[in-house]
């Protein structure tokens, strides 16, 4: 059981961004992808989620054997168990957090079944408290006027409420101060389970001090070029991405 990406090629317009990417995240593990800006990390997250601007040219992504690309609409993929915490979460004016998450939870219930409002709010408040999000935020419009840290905490709150099988966190550490980073990481760590896999995309090793990965992958120019344990992250931090590129050239 895993999130498996096989020989994935994807374009934006005429430009190829993902150039034969292979990766497997077994259920129960946390994998990290590190890479320079422009290496295609965020593209991978959006392609999996089904962003309309990207075109999949070839390759396969499966969730526990289920072909993701058989599901055309992003909402089908979400309900199949895929969650993406975005680097730049969208603002939805006038739609409150409580109503937004409620609509998402409701969408997972069988047709005709109504969400129990009392249970929903109990669950929501519990998770907000854990993420140290003020309960007043339930009536704030989604991401509107939020600070960078508030947006990221709100992404993790949504993840906690939706209980995905595989979660992709795209640069969740960007824009976070050290306290927020700790709170967000604790939120993610609390969700680690044998029943769930994580793919953590980050530019910096810093996040991986808090969310300890089982495997670290390095992405260069639309491919995974190197994989290792958490010490790889330290090595990258110390020696920079140029070192990876030289190593890759050597082996090529």
């Amino acid at each position, binding site marked *: 059981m895993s999130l498996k990406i096989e020989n994935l090629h994807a374009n934006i317009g005429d430009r190829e961004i993902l150039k034969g990417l292979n990766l497997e995240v077994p259920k129960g593990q946390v994998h990290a992808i590190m890479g320079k800006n422009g290496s295609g990390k965020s593209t991978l997250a959006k392609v999996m989620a089904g962003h309309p601007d990207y075109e999949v040219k070839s390759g396969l992504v499966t969730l526990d054997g289920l072909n993701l690309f058989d599901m055309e609409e*992003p909402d089908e993929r979400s309900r199949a168990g895929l*969650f993406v915490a975005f680097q730049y*979460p*969208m603002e*939805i004016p006038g739609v409150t957090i409580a109503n937004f998450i409620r609509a*998402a939870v409701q969408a997972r219930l069988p047709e005709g079944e109504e969400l129990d409002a009392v249970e929903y709010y109990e669950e929501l408040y519990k998770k907000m408290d854990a993420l140290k999000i003020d309960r007043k935020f339930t009536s704030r*419009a989604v991401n509107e006027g939020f600070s960078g840290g508030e947006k990221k905490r709100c992404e993790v709150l949504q993840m906690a409420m939706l209980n995905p099988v595989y979660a992709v966190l795209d640069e969740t550490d960007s824009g976070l101060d050290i306290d927020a980073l700790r709170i967000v990481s604790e939120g993610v760590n609390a969700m680690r389970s044998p029943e769930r896999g994580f793919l953590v995309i980050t530019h910096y090793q810093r996040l991986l001090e808090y969310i300890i990965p089982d495997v670290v992958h390095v992405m260069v120019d639309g491919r995974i070029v190197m994989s290792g344990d958490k010490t790889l992250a330290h090595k990258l931090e110390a020696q920079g991405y140029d070192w990876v590129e030289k190593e890759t050239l050597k082996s090529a």
Partner: protein
Amino acid sequence: MDTKLNLNIDRSVGDFHYDVDYEFDAGTGLSEKTIDYICDVKKDPDWIREFRKDALRKFNSMPMPTHWASPDLENIVFENIRYYLSQGTMPKRSWDDVPEDVKRTFERLGIPEQERKFLAGVEAQFDSEAAYSNIKAAVGDQGVIFVGSTEGLQKHPEIFKKWFGKVIPTGDNKFSALNSAVFSGGSFIYIPPGVKVKHPLQAYFRINAENFGQFERTLIIADEGSEVMYMEGCTAPKFETSTLHSAVVELVALKGAKIQYITVQNWSANVFNLVTKRGIAHEEAEIKWIDCNIGSRLTMKYPGVVMKGRKARGEVISIALAGDGQHQDTGAKMIHAADETTSNIVSKSISIGKGRSTYRGLVQVGRHLKGCKNNTECDALLINTDSRTDTYPAITVRGKENACQHEASVSKISAEQIFYMQQRGISKAAAMSLAVNGFVNDLVQQFPMEYSVELKRLIDLEMEGSVG
């Protein structure tokens, strides 16, 4: 005020009609004979007969306002319209006395039930005349008058005559002239000084007949320091041919009085809805129009407030939803005619499919005035690429110490927003609904609760059809 109201505005709910035997029928077309017929049936006093005939002359001499308004107006064929249809002129005081074939319509629309639950008074108009009109005893005992226009002019001429046609003169526009010629039904309301009516008064306007024109006339006078909330709902069955609804509504708020007038218009898509609404606010009085236009083929409506006394206040809050084949041409008029008067206009429109929404605003502040303020915000949301919106603000502020602020925006729901919501498992149609409801959310809060619930449900219904 009790703000609960269960008025159903799902268009499919109003789309039914029963065959009814009309006792009085003025036939098709409009002439002096039509006017005489109406006057005879209604036993109008002579001054009203004269008033109507003068209005007919004005109507005939005035051109269609197509130099600025939609050419779709040319498609109204006045000769094909039936101007008066009723089963009698005096509304019943008890639902038991309302003829069965009319009563079942209002029962199906849920009006008697709402009346029992939370209304201070109800008038239910069926084509040309109110079939039912009643006011709760406790409210009537305070001296509040709530009757139809015919009863108003016959039984309360001293108040009626003083204000009737004074806020909106007959020749204000072609359709106010038409209404003045053939008006029937609508409400006459008088609130005595200092009386604050706790619960809303409601009128429900129902068109049942095909090729018919409904021309209700409403006059509300809130005497010094009084307060009243009036709500109107409208539906009609969907016919192949067009139907005309052309009302005139006049409000008078005397010193320190407050009138809140709420409309939820959900006419079927064959109705031309051409309405003139205006209020005069005397010193420290307040008139607030809350206007929601969802149905009709073409709506032209620009509720206005003339702020005649010092510190008077006018407000128009409007939501328009223009679906495929619909044109919502709405807005507001604010005439500042005294010092320190303030007005506020907030308009939000949503255009879906090939729907078109237009905002027209008029704000005038005279040269000799000081301390006047106006705030205008109009926001348009376009759902599809062929949806359309236009904004025509006309703001004239003279004098030195007046302030005016105008903000307008046009937005689209971005593909990124929809993608974001879909990633959370919400379907595209549900995501669109959420975004649209979010857009009008701050205004919907100002509607009575039951209206806002229904409004949300209706938006959901509209959005389901708009996502291909």
